[in-house]
C-alpha cells in the first residue's frame, strides 16, 4: 500500500484514548478550534457562534478553552441549542424567534460581540425576504452562495471586532454590508482548517481531559448501514449531529 505524505498525515494515537474520543480531531474539532483561534480571544470577551452543528459546537468549546467569558450560540433547532447550553455552557438565541442582531447588541451593552464565528457557510437558511432573494438569485444562477449569516455577523459584531468564517463559501455572494464592515473596522479571518497545525495540540488537550469531543456523536451504526446513516445525517433525523460507522 502506498501512503502519500505519510511523514505528515498519519498520527500515532497515544495509549488510553478511545477511537470515538479522537475521531473528530481529524476534521470537525480543529475546524471549530481554528474558528475560535482566528478570533484572538482576550479574557473577558464575548463570542457569538452561528450554527450549532458539530463544527459550531467545537468552536463554542474552543472559545472557552481560549479564554472567552461568554459564548452565545445561534441556531433554529431547539435540540441543537439545548446541546450548546448543556455541553458547551453557552447562552442561546433561536433566530426564528428573535431578531438576532438586536438581541446580541442588547446582551452586550449595546456594543455587539467582540468576535463572531460563522459555522454555517454558503447554505444558510433564512425565513426573511432576503432569504427568498438569495434563493431566487441562486435559481437564476446569478449568485452561488447564500450569505445570510455573514450579513448578520457583520451587523452584530462590535466596532473593531473580528469575523471568523469557518462555514464554507464557494463562489459569489451579493448584498454584503461592506460599508458597515469597513467603517466598523472589522477584521475578517477565514479559510479551510489547517489540520496539521492543530492535531497534536488537540490530542494533548483530549488526553489531559480538557475536552471530550465524542459528545457530538448522536448515532452509532455499522458500515453496512452507511446509506441510511447519510440519510439520517442529511435529514437531521433524531436530532442527528454526527453518525459514527464501525466496520
Amino acid at each position, binding site marked *: 500500500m502506498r501512503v502519500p505524505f505519510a511523514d505528515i498525515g498519519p498520527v500515532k494515537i497515544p495509549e488510553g484514548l478511545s477511537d470515538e474520543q479522537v475521531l473528530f480531531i481529524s476534521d470537525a474539532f480543529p475546524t471549530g478550534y481554528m474558528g475560535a483561534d482566528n478570533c484572538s480571544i482576550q479574557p473577558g470577551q464575548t463570542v457569538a457562534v452561528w450554527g450549532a452543528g458539530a463544527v459550531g459546537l467545537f468552536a463554542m468549546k474552543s472559545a472557552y478553552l481560549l479564554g472567552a467569558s461568554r459564548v452565545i450560540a445561534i441556531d433554529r433547532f431547539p435540540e441543537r441549542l439545548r446541546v450548546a447550553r448543556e455541553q458547551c455552557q453557552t447562552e442561546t438565541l433561536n433566530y*426564528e*424567534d*428573535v431578531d438576532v442582531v438586536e438581541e446580541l447588541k*442588547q446582551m452586550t451593552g449595546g456594543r455587539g460581540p467582540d468576535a463572531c464565528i460563522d459555522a454555517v457557510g454558503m447554505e444558510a437558511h433564512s*425565513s426573511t*425576504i432576503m432569504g*427568498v432573494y438569495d434563493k431566487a438569485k441562486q435559481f437564476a444562477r446569478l449568485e452561488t452562495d447564500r450569505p445570510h449569516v455573514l450579513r448578520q455577523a457583520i451587523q452584530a459584531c462590535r466596532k473593531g471586532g473580528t469575523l471568523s468564517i469557518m462555514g464554507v463559501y464557494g463562489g459569489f455572494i451579493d448584498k454584503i454590508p461592506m460599508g458597515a464592515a469597513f467603517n466598523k473596522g472589522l477584521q475578517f479571518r477565514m479559510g479551510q482548517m489547517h489540520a496539521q497545525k492543530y492535531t497534536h495540540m488537540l490530542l494533548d488537550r483530549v488526553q489531559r481531559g480538557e475536552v471530550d469531543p465524542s459528545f457530538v456523536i448522536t448515532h452509532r451504526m455499522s458500515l453496512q448501514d452507511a446509506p441510511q446513516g447519510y440519510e439520517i445525517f442529511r435529514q437531521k433525523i433524531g436530532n442527528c449531529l454526527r453518525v459514527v460507522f464501525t466496520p
Partner: protein
Amino acid sequence: MTTPQTASTSKQNISSRLHQDGTRTINVGPMERLISIAGGGALTYYGLRHLSLRGALFALLGGDLVYRGITGHCWLYQVLGVSTAEKLRSTLVRLPDNQGIKVKRTVTINRPAEDLYRFWEDVENMPRFMKYIQEVSRTGENRSHWVAQSPVLGTRLEWDSEVTHSQAPSLIAWRTLNQTSFAHAGTVRFGPAPYGNETTVTLTLEFRQPVGQVGAITEKLLGYIPEQLALEDLRRFKQLMEAAEIAQSESHPSGRSTM
C-alpha cells in the same frame, strides 16, 4: 410595592409563545398588516366603484389583502417559506395577562458608574438628555414633579414621581404617582463592562396600562415609541457623559421637533 423587575421575561417563555395556532401561523408583521388592510380597503373601494371586469378583479384582490391583514396570514409567504411576522424582542415585551408593556434598552458609556449614578440621581438633570422631558423639579426627599411634551400628540403632560429604591452606584428605581397617560415604573442600572472604566447602563420602563384584545396590535405599534425613546435618551445620556454635550444631528436643529 410593584417594582419593575417583577415581570420575568426570560428567553424560555419567549420561545414558547410562538406558532400558537398550528398551521395558520401569523407570518405577516403588524405594520405590514395595517398597510395590507388600508391598501386592500382602498383597492376594494376603487374596484366596487368601477363595474367592470377590471373593477371586479381589483375588488377581489383588495378583499384578499384586507383578509390577509386581519388574519395576519399570507399564503404566498407560506409557500415561499417567508415570515415578516414580528420576532419577539427583549427590548419590547408584553407583560403577562395583558397588563401593559415593558421596554428595556442598554448602552455602554465610557465613564465610571459613580459619575453616571451621581448625575442621574439629580432628577433636575433629566431634561438635559431626555428629549421630551421639559422640566423636573424636586418636591420632596424622594419626590419630584415632571413636565413633558407628549411624543405622540405634542400636548403637555405632567406627573409626580417617586424614587422607590436606590443603591449607589448601581441602581435607581422610580414610579409615577398619579394616573397620567405616561404612568410607568422605571429602573436604571449601572453595571460593569469588560473594558477599562466603561459602564453598562440599562434602562427599563414598565407601562402598566391594560388594553383590550382589539388594542393589541396598536399597543405593539405604539410600544415602539417608548422603545425608541428609551434608546435615544440613553444615547443622548452617553454623549452628555462622554463629551459633555449632545450633538444635534436631527433635521430640526432646535431638537424639539413635534414628530
